[in-house]
C-alpha cells in the first residue's frame, strides 16, 4: 500500500514539473495565435462577433475537421491518406442512389457509412497486407474512388434526398450551434480520449515513434494501422452525410481538393509528418485558427483563395520554426 502511495506522489511531482513545458508547447503557441486572430477579426469588422456570422463560419470547417481527427492518427503512425475527399464522393454517391429508392434516413446514412468504411478498409488492407507506401496506395484509390463516382454519375447530380435529410448539414441542436459543429465537438472529445487516454492511443504513438520497437513489444502494427484507416473511411462517410445534406445534392466533384486542406489542418495542428507526435488539442486549435482566418478575411471581403496563401505560408513557417531556433541556439552555443 505504501508503495502505491509513494509512486502516486511521484506522479504528482511530474505533473508539476511538466507544467512549464506545456506553456511553451506548440498548442499554446497555436492558441495564442488563434486568440490574436480573434481580436484582429473583432477590430476588423463589427459584424464578426454577430452570433449568426460566427455560427455560419462553423459550417465552413466542421466537415473537414471531422476528417482531420482520424487523419491525425494516420499521420502519427507515419502514413498518409490523400483519398479522403474521394471517399466522401463515393460515400455521398451511395447515399444518393439509396435516396432514389427509399426515404429512410437510416438506410441512406447506412449506405454512406458502409461504403466509406469499406473504402477505408481497402486502403488499409492494401497498405498493411501488401506493404505498399500509403502515399502511393491512396494516390491510386483517390483516382479510383472518385473515378467510380464519375462512372456512376457522369455529369448528373443526385438530389432526391428527403426533406428530413437536410438536418445533418443545416440543422441546429441549440441556438447558434449547428448539428455539424456539435458533432465535430463530440467527435473531437472522443478522439481526444482515444488518443490521449487509452491503450490504443499509447500504441498509436509507440508505432509512430518506432514501429520496429512497437512490433518487438508485441503490438500488432498491421492490425492497428488497418483499424486507423477504417476509422478514416468511416469518418469520411460522416462528413459525407453532412456535406451532402448541406448541399442537398451529390455531384461527382463533391469535396474536390479537400484532402490538402485537411492535411494542412493536421500538420498545422502540430502533428509531425514524420510521425510519432501531435495531439488532438493541437488539431482542434488549428481547425479553429483556420476557421477564424477564413471568416475574418471573408468579413473584410478578401476572397478565400488569398487565405490559402496565408495558410500555406503559415504551414511552412511553423514547421520551419523549431529547426531555425535550434540552429540559432547552436550558433549561440558555438
Amino acid at each position: 500500500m505504501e508503495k502505491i502511495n509513494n509512486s502516486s506522489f511521484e506522479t504528482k511531482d511530474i505533473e508539476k514539473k511538466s507544467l512549464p513545458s506545456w506553456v511553451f508547447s506548440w498548442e499554446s503557441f497555436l492558441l495564442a495565435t488563434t486568440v490574436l486572430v480573434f481580436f484582429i477579426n473583432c477590430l476588423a469588422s463589427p459584424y464578426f462577433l454577430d452570433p449568426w456570422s460566427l455560427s455560419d463560419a462553423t459550417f465552413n470547417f466542421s466537415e473537414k475537421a471531422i476528417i482531420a481527427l482520424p487523419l491525425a492518427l494516420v499521420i502519427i503512425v507515419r502514413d498518409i491518406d490523400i483519398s479522403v475527399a474521394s471517399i466522401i464522393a463515393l460515400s455521398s454517391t451511395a447515399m444518393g442512389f439509396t435516396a432514389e429508392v427509399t426515404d429512410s434516413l437510416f438506410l441512406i446514412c447506412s449506405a454512406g457509412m458502409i461504403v466509406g468504411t469499406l473504402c477505408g478498409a481497402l486502403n488499409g488492407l492494401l497498405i498493411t497486407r501488401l506493404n505498399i507506401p500509403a502515399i502511393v496506395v491512396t494516390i491510386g484509390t483517390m483516382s479510383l474512388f472518385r473515378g467510380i463516382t464519375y462512372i456512376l454519375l457522369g455529369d448528373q447530380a443526385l438530389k432526391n434526398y428527403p426533406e428530413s435529410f437536410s438536418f445533418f448539414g443545416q440543422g441546429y441542436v441549440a441556438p447558434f450551434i449547428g448539428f455539424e459543429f456539435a458533432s465535430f465537438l463530440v467527435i473531437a472529445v472522443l478522439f481526444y480520449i482515444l488518443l490521449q487516454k487509452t491503450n490504443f492511443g499509447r500504441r498509436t504513438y509507440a508505432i509512430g515513434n518506432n514501429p520496429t520497437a512497437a512490433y518487438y513489444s508485441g503490438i500488432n502494427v498491421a492490425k492497428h494501422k488497418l483499424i486507423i484507416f477504417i476509422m478514416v473511411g468511416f469518418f469520411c462517410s460522416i462528413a459525407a452525410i453532412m456535406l451532402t445534406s448541406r448541399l442537398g445534392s451529390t455531384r461527382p466533384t463533391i469535396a474536390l481538393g479537400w484532402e490538402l486542406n485537411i492535411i494542412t489542418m493536421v500538420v498545422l495542428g502540430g502533428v509531425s509528418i514524420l510521425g510519432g507526435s501531435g495531439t488532438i488539442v493541437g488539431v482542434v486549435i488549428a481547425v479553429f485558427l483556420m476557421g477564424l482566418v477564413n471568416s475574418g478575411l471573408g468579413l473584410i471581403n478578401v476572397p478565400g483563395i488569398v487565405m490559402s496563401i496565408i495558410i500555406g505560408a503559415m504551414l511552412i513557417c511553423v514547421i520551419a520554426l523549431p529547426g531555425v531556433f535550434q540552429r540559432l541556439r547552436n550558433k549561440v552555443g558555438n
Partner: protein
Amino acid sequence: MKQLLKNREAQLALVILSLLAMIGAIIPDFLAISNLLGVYTDTSILIILALGQMLVIITRCIDLSIAANVALTGMVVATINSLYPDFPVPVIILIGAGFGTLLGMLNGWLVWKMKIPSIVVTLGTMAIFRGAVFLISKGAWINAHQMSATFLEIPRYVFLGLPILGWCSVIVIAAMYYFTRHRQLGRKIYAAGNSPTAAYYIGVDVGKKQFIAFTISGLLAGIASYLWISRYAVAYVDIANGFEMLVIASCVIGGVSIAGGTGTVIGCVLGALFLGIINNALPVIGISPFWQMAISGSVIILAVIANSRSERKVGRIILRKAVQNAS
C-alpha cells in the same frame, strides 16, 4: 526475351501496345499515324511535368506544387503577353522558364536548408502559388483575344509533321535522358535517392541534390506553363487544378519508386503516354470519358502492386547451401 520481360519498361511498353491493339481493333483509325501523333502531342505537357516530378521522387521527395507552379507561371506569362503584346515571345518563354525555376528553387531551398519534409513544403507552396495567381489576376480570366497571335501560334506550328508542342516534349525527353544517363550530376541524383547513407560515404551532398531536382522540376514546370496557356488559350486561377496527381500517377505507373532511387526517363514517358492514350481513346471507342479516372486509379494500384512484388528484397543469406541455391 526473358530478360526483356523482366524489364519494367518493356512490360509497360507491351501493355501499351496491347492497349493500342485493342483500341485499334475497335477503331482502326485510332492507329493512324496522324492520330497517334495527335495523342502524343496532347500528352506532351504531362510528359514534361512527369519528367520533372520523376527527378524529385528519385531523391525521395515529392512535388505537390508542380501544377500550381504551372498555373502561377502561366498567369505571369499570359499577363505579360496581354499587357505588352509586342514583347517578343521567346523572351516571354525565357521569363516563364526562369520564373518557374525560381519557384522550384524555393521548394528545394526549403527542403534542403530548412529541412522541412517535401510533402509539407509543397503542400504549402501549392496553396501559396495558387493564391498568388489570384493576386496577379484579381480573379479575372485572360482569354484568347487578349493574347497575341504569335504567342498562341508558336506551339501549334507544325514542323516535320509534329507541332512544336510535341517537339518540345521530344527535346525535353532527349535532354532528360542525356542528363540522367550521361551527366555526373544526374547520376548523383540517383545515388542520393537510392541510399543517402552510401551517398554521403562517397561525398554526395544529398540535400543539395534534392534542391537541384526541385530546381529542374521548376524549370520544366515553367516551360510547360507557356505551352499550357498557349494550347488552351486561356489563363485563370484554377488552371491545371489537380493535375499534380496525374503527373505523380504517370511516374508511379512508369515504375518510379516512391521510396526513391529508381525510375527511368523511358518508363516515366511510357507512364504518361499510357494515361494520355486512355484519355484520348475512351471517347473514341464510345466509353464515357468518365471512366478515365477510375481506370487510371486502378492502373496505379496494379502498377504499385506489381512493383512491390518484383521489389521483394533478398535478405542476407547465411546458410551456404542457400547461397548456392540462390546463385
